[in-house]
């Protein structure tokens, strides 16, 4: 109920007539509609709608829709989008107009006919900062490990983002922990985005449309994580003709089929991929290897149906599994997500989305049956959620977004059971826990005068633990005293948070701007993991009477400037971030299959700061970006160490160069070079000998560093000839990961010599030397 009042309070200033900036005697009308791709009918997200006479405009939302209210008159409106030919339109506005604009992709053969000044200056004029959007075509050009182009690996090349360890899908945003990133696939939370121990991510490029990473200034419609939001949108499918896309690589292949079910109204896309390294194992002469299994597969599907101009629905789903087994062990894990979405246009100014999501992450680990040590361990995590979002284009000066969401979380941290008749193990059930996470938000984007845009809003979050549940009570020294058991349905713990989100933009005549933002975020679910790389054996645990929610505050300031008709975007951003109740674990913590996990958690504060320089190129010949980041990140958890220590992601200097050169019509060359200060690490500064083993006496936490990390990747793509009306096209991609074969440190072990036990030495493990690969991609189209 309290929430309701907050919302009313927030909406009040907008309801008063004073909030309308236009004089009442001028008649106003609304132009609204949708911007789509001419070839396949898919909506274009973030396309610019620019009114030349007013020198103002808007951009399309996630569903390609826009709404603009203008005084009566004749206008030249330009619709534009990166990689598409801009399209001007003259409109006589004397009544409300609804239209559908189709943009055609830029043909490489075409001469530049585009009016450059009207396009993609969003970097400068949009009030959102600390955000990076990439479409899938950009990602596909980046050289990749084993030729497997990957969304998350691309994200890790952005300023302010660090990979947690070589090859891992985990990433740290502005000094945050990997579990502080919210990863959404069509709005459903993906709890573990890795395949094959993190060397690949769950996102199949052929099914992804675009990705957006919010590193700060997180919009009020998102919540639940401190550090970032990665919003991945699946392709909607071609509503005009059939397409088959596929690729054959050295370790995996993929195929995507899309097309209309009802032309221009209803489309579908189905995409699948599988790795097949293990298919060659039966050929091995090693008997033990022949029965090994090691693969993953993915399935993505989506149906998009435009019922009429005012109603669109879609249904999308993802299912993926990793399977591993040999004679000693079997293991499998994976995500399943489902999203149902209804976009409804109430009026030309009020858009509505209703989303219901389902997410499931599960894993099992076990041994083959029939031995005395046979057992199987199952764990899973389920989410059911419903969400309503409104966008209200009140007038040209104000756009109000508001809505709410409720998610039910069910976490089963582990059921371990002896299997088969010979097993000696009985079974263990770590208590399951249930909770409801809800949020209400409202945020207004207001233009003040001709240079200033303010975005102000608040998100109210609420987290309730519901029975059945067991809560252990601990002494201040983390020893269990007793426990309380709660019955089904009883709400036994509630946390709430008020999360203000503020943003300011000052625009110097469209060429450059200054932006500032502040955001507070709450996080109620976290990962019990204290390793640096992460395994599939994830245990998420919620806020509880023993664990307070994590709270993050971030302020950021940035200067943005575009050059050469917006083909060169530059920016500098500084940020400072405070975190409360951040999580770490006691030394030698035992996180698997324990019901007193909370007793091993140690909490404290964290802070990080940094400056990020970015130059992004969008020229015809050269595209990509170059960035330099200086950042620090610390944790202050007195029970771990009296003084603050560097966070595992504290890598002060960071350079990314990601470039693509279109050297000829059919040839393109890509290169990326990354450099990062070595990760902080704890090293021994002495040794003791106990029972024949040399044990290290360690330095302070993270007092040393690994060697600096750097790596160059290269790729060359050769494409088939472009001919109009050609149905079949292909490209061949050669790539080299770690081109100058640097042995970057994955970990350093301190080893006791086998022959002379008095001798100890340091041994570096590195994962990848130089790795060449080749991928063949094909594309077939039928109108």
């Amino acid at each position, binding site marked *: 109920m309290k929430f309701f009042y907050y919302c009313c309070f927030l909406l009040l200033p907008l309801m008063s007539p004073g909030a309308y900036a236009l004089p009442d005697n001028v008649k106003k009308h609304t132009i609204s509609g949708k911007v789509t791709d001419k070839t396949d009918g898919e909506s274009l997200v973030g396309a610019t709608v620019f009114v030349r006479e007013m020198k103002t405009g808007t951009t399309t939302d996630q569903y390609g829709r826009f709404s603009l209210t203008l005084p009566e008159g004749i206008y030249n409106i330009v619709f534009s989008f990166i990689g598409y030919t801009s399209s001007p339109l003259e409109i006589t506005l004397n009544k409300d107009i609804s239209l559908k604009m189709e943009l055609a992709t830029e043909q490489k053969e075409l001469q530049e006919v585009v009016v450059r000044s009207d396009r993609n200056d969003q970097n400068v004029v949009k009030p959102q900062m600390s955000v990076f959007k990439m479409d899938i075509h950009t990602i596909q050009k980046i050289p990749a490990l084993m030729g497997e182009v990957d969304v998350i690996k691309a994200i890790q090349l952005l300023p302010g983002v660090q990979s947690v360890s070589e090859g891992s899908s985990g990433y740290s945003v502005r000094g945050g922990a990997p579990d502080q990133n919210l990863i959404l696939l069509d709005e459903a939370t993906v709890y573990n985005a890795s395949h094959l121990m993190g060397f690949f991510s769950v996102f199949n490029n052929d099914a992804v449309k675009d990705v957006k990473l919010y590193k700060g200034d997180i919009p009020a419609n998102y919540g639940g994580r401190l550090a970032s939001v990665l919003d991945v949108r699946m392709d909607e499918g071609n509503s005009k003709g059939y397409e088959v896309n596929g690729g054959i690589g050295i370790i995996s292949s993929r195929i995507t089929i899309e097309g209309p079910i009802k032309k221009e109204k209803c489309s579908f896309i189905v995409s699948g991929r599988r790795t097949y390294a293990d298919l060659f194992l039966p050929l091995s002469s090693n008997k033990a290897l022949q029965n090994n299994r090691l693969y993953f597969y993915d399935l993505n599907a989506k149906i998009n149906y435009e019922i009429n101009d005012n109603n669109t629905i879609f249904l999308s789903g993802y299912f993926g599994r990793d399977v591993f087994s040999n004679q000693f062990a079997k293991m499998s894990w994976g995500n399943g997500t489902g999203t149902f979405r209804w976009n409804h246009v109430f009026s030309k100014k009020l858009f509505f989305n209703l989303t219901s999501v389902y997410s499931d992450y599960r894993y099992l680990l076990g041994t083959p049956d029939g031995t*005395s040590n046979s057992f199987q361990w199952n764990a899973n995590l389920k989410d059911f959620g419903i969400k309503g979002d409104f966008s209200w284009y009140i007038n040209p000066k104000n756009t109000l977004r508001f809505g709410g969401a409720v998610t039910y979380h069910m976490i089963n941290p582990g059921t371990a059971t002896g299997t088969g008749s010979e097993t000696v193990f009985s079974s263990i059930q770590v208590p399951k826990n249930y909770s409801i996470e809800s949020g209400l938000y409202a945020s207004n984007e207001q233009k003040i005068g001709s240079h200033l845009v303010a975005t102000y809003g608040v998100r109210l979050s609420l987290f309730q633990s519901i029975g059945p549940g067991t809560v252990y009570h601990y002494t201040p020294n983390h020893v269990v005293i007793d426990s309380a058991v709660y019955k089904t349905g009883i709400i036994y713990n509630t946390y709430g948070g008020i999360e203000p989100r503020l943003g300011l933009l000052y625009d110097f005549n469209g060429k450059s701007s200054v932006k500032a933002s502040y955001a507070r975020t709450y996080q109620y679910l976290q990962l019990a993991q204290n390793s640096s790389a992460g395994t599939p054996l994830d245990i998420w645990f919620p806020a509880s009477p023993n664990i307070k929610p994590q709270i993050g505050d971030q302020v950021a300031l940035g200067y943005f400037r575009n050059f050469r008709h917006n083909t060169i975007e530059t920016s500098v951003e500084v940020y400072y971030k405070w975190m409360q109740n951040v999580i770490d674990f006691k030394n030698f913590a035992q996180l698997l299959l324990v019901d007193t996990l909370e007793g091993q958690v140690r909490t404290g504060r964290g802070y990080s700061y940094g400056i990020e320089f970015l130059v992004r190129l969008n020229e015809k010949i050269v595209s990509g970006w170059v960035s330099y980041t200086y950042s620090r990140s610390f944790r202050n958890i007195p029970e771990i160490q009296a003084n603050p220590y560097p966070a595992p992601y504290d890598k002060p200097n960071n350079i990314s160069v990601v470039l693509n050169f279109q050297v000829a019509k059919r040839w393109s060359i890509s290169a990326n070079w990354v450099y990062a200060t070595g990760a902080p690490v704890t090293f021994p500064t002495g040794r003791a000998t106990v029972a024949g083993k040399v044990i290290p006496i360690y330095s302070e936490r993270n007092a040393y560093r690994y060697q600096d990390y750097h790596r160059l990747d290269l790729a060359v793509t050769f494409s088939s000839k472009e001919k109009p009306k050609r149905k079949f096209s292909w490209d061949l991609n050669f790539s080299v990961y770690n081109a100058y074969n640097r042995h970057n440190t994955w970990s350093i072990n301190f080893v006791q010599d086998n022959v002379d036990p008095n001798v100890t030495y340091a041994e570096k493990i590195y994962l990848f030397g130089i790795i060449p690969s080749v991928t063949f991609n094909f594309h077939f189209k039928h109108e």
Partner: protein
Amino acid sequence: MNKLLFSLLILLLIAGCTERINVNLDNSYIRLVVDGGITNDSMLQSVSISKTASYFYNQPPPMVSHAIVTLSDGSFLDTLVEELPANPGIYTLPKKFRGVIGKTYGLDIKLPEVIGNAAEYSSICKIMKVARLDSIQAEFNPDMGKNGHWLIKIYAQEPGDEMNFYLLRYYRNGVLMSDSIQKWSTSDDKFFNGSYIKGLTAFRINNGNPWETLHPGDTLLVQMSGITKEYYDFIQEVQQAGYQIPFFSGPPANVEGNISNGGVGFFTAYSNSFAKLVIPTK
């Protein structure tokens, strides 16, 4: 159980490449190291006292001689004697001594000079009871690995009254094969508290390693010890120390023992139970 999980995870690792490297390390201050203890039989009645050294010291640990080391159970029991010059730093009970299950023993050390930040150190440990080993079995599994593996299985009734912790070691023809802490097996009773332990695999011996594999006619002896939770944790921590596998190792940390004043190591006390088997001819 958790060890089993970890060993499974290791199998999952995509093998990385290794190379020896030089690392420059600082030296922290010198600490006292205590290692040893007593049992309810004559298996162990001594402690070794040494000092920490720089990490790449690469020589036998510097031993500490001329300390006064005494054992008590609330009241003074005996003084442990150092045999010089034969075994410097090794202090042994002079008379035959048998610890009593359920009793708590104390070790007091007075040093001739200050080491670390103290000249006096002490420690206590209780002798826990042990499940009686009924029997053991050695099973050959030809399908495991290239040359097959021997699995040594144990049979015992778990008492079930409280959380128990066990340490397992084995001898081949009277020679201790679990000769370093890295080769010890440990188990808690989480999965079989109070029930009959019917063939838990305690050791897995690679038949491809001639120095450790079993042959018909070999006498196999398994020693099972009831240990305290603190000692169980200590063994686990020592076994993990030094190795970092980014997939599942937590941040490195100092192993926690039970020696006062910041001393390193463990003074332990435990009870034993044994079972013997002669490997039959096929």
